[in-house]
């Protein structure tokens, strides 16, 4: 699913990275806990979260994510958006709950990453 398709599906307002909407994401993860995101999210994924502090962008940078979707109508402070721009991330805000966003994306074919601990097993297989 392209990020543009995600934005259309969620009726989202893109906050930064408008020139990168043609990128594809292969999965999505919903979490307000960054340690859970670090444990379970795959690369090329979109993160749906209600957290708007700099740690979300730093976590996205560590994980090489493509897109952060701020749910429940949240908009991060300007300095957080500037960090996201510098990292080449697309960010958007959606005036819907996380549950509704996840349902809409799932209905349009996007799936969560397989559970388990993928990183090490993938590396040694």
């Amino acid at each position: 699913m392209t990020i543009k398709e995600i934005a259309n599906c969620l009726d989202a307002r893109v906050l930064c990275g408008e020139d990168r909407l043609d990128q594809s994401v292969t999965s999505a993860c919903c979490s307000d806990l960054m340690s859970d995101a670090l444990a379970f999210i795959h690369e090329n994924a979109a993160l749906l979260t209600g957290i708007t502090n700099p740690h979300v962008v730093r976590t996205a940078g560590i994980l090489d994510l493509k897109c952060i979707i701020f749910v429940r109508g949240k908009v991060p402070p300007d300095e957080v958006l500037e960090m996201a721009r510098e990292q080449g991330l697309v960010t958007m805000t959606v005036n819907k709950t996380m549950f509704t966003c996840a349902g809409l994306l799932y209905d349009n074919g996007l799936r969560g990453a397989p559970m388990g601990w993928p990183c090490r097993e993938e590396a040694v297989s």
Partner: protein
Amino acid sequence: MVHAEYDIQKGAYNSAGEASADIKRKLQQLGISPVTLRRVAVSSYEMEMNIIIHSLGGTMGLCVDKDWITLSSKDQGPGIEDVELAMSEGYSTADDDARSMGFGAGMGLPNMKRNADDFRITSQLGEGTQITITFKVM
């Protein structure tokens, strides 16, 4: 061979992640594969956040040679009372400040262990905690 050491302060949330971002940059410059890079980056971020959230401050180190990448941390206390319990997924003693910023899921130590090829932790209550994790360069 690459060596780097970073001072990490207790509660330094504003600069949290900077050491890990630098480690990731260094490894990218060395041409480390994306899969290994991701495993090290996730582990270093967890290690850095653990020092910030749980310790009185400490240091974090990176050592890279031909075959291995080693991350290490040493803090000034307070030490972990029950290391086995702390290694349980979902167990966390993070305070409200850390939780309000999205940390404290209780996945830090387990996440480091699962990403690494070797994980060692020693902790002495009242003294501090040392962690050494290694990754085979692939």
